[in-house]
């Protein structure tokens, strides 16, 4: 319950909007281009306001957030190059819609972390919930634990690396990008995928519709070895490659405007 301390400060207006008048708490200890603040007694909105104040207005490029307390929607909408460390775990929808940051989360994350990520790096030391990297468009998402179901659903770019196992329907409607799952995966891998590549190191319970084994190339080896080297993940396991069979959906014959949606 200690993690909920800050939530007692949340106010709602008549429309049901949470904290419509929240102010930047300005509680950080700033040293040069780095800053540290304790989020224990802050609400979600206050934490995000503090982050943006530091990054956009104070010229800070390296922020450490202590005691995030598994609050939801932290670190969202950060659109600049910077480093952020969350010392603890995040709740739902953490680090969504980011473009540029390099984020390190020392704990776990809930559902839908990094959804709609545009660019940057997110490294999660623990497990991640379902829908991790949903609709992700670019950048690298590294989960050192396990991920839940439908990770990378509607993924349109970027690389998701999972050292542990993954749940069912992983890569559902994958449209571009890559997933590297070192452990086992559940049923329906890559169901209805349009494009993209899924690499699996463990057992596949079952393949989804139109997900088929792919031919390994030198480019696959280069990508895997480069990503494992960058994130110091050790030697990569032997991986199977899966791609779209192109029997169900693909973008080849669609209108130009629709093709743009996945570029």
């Amino acid at each position, binding site marked *: 319950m200690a993690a909920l301390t800050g939530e007692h400060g949340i106010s709602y207006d008549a429309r049901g909007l949470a904290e419509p008048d929240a102010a930047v708490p300005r509680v950080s200890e700033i040293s040069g281009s780095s800053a540290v603040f304790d989020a224990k007694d802050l609400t979600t909105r206050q934490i995000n306001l503090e982050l943006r104040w530091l990054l*956009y207005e104070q010229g800070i490029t390296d922020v450490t957030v202590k005691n995030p307390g598994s609050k939801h929607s932290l670190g969202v909408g950060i*659109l600049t*190059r910077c480093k952020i460390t969350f010392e603890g775990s995040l709740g739902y929808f953490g680090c969504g819609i980011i473009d540029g940051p390099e984020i390190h989360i020392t704990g776990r994350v809930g559902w839908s972390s990094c959804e709609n990520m545009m660019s*940057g790096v997110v490294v999660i030391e623990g497990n991640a919930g379902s829908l991790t990297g949903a609709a992700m468009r670019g*950048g*690298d998402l590294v989960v050192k634990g396990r991920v839940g179901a439908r990770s990378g659903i509607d993924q349109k*770019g*970027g690389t998701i690396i999972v050292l542990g196992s993954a749940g069912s329907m992983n890569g559902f409607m994958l449209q*571009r990008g890559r997933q590297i799952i070192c452990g086992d995966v559940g049923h329906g891998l890559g169901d209805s995928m349009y494009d993209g590549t899924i690499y699996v190191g463990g057992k596949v319970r079952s393949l989804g519709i139109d997900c088929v084994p792919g031919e390994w190339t030198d480019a696959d080896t280069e990508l895997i070895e480069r990503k494992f080297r*960058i994130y110091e993940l050790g030697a990569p396991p032997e991986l199977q490659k899966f791609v779209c069979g192109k029997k169900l959906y693909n973008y080849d014959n669609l209108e130009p405007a629709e093709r743009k949606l996945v570029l």
Partner: protein
Amino acid sequence: MSDMAPHDIGYGEPEKIQSIDAEFLAGHRFPYQEDISLIEDIDLDAATPGADINWLEDIHLLIEEGTPAVFDRYSNAFLKIYFPIPADRENEIARKVLIKHLTSGNSYGIQLKEKHTKFPQPELGPWVPGSKTVGTDYHAPVLEGWEPPAH
């Protein structure tokens, strides 16, 4: 449209543009679309987060209306490339042209930020350090003569 009857103009489908490219949005071409020397010195690793090319991994040279082009997702438009592209450097050149376009502030989506963005953010996004913050004083547009309902 000129040979259509007034009735057709009034009730017909509006003219549709199949592809909106960066030149159409800007009204002119950019020098780096025509001169490879303007993009050769761009460091793609330095221009992107992390230790490699990060999000540029998904950027490839495409063809738009018969011309080599790179897609700018920040304005939903193709940026055509008119200079000869050396063999085996297609994707590298496409990525460099795109980064030049974004860091120059010429992407149409970036130009809309000053007026329309609702929340504070760096104008030139993650591509240029220290760019000014826009969106700090957003006011929703008000339709002249409109008043909110009484209830």
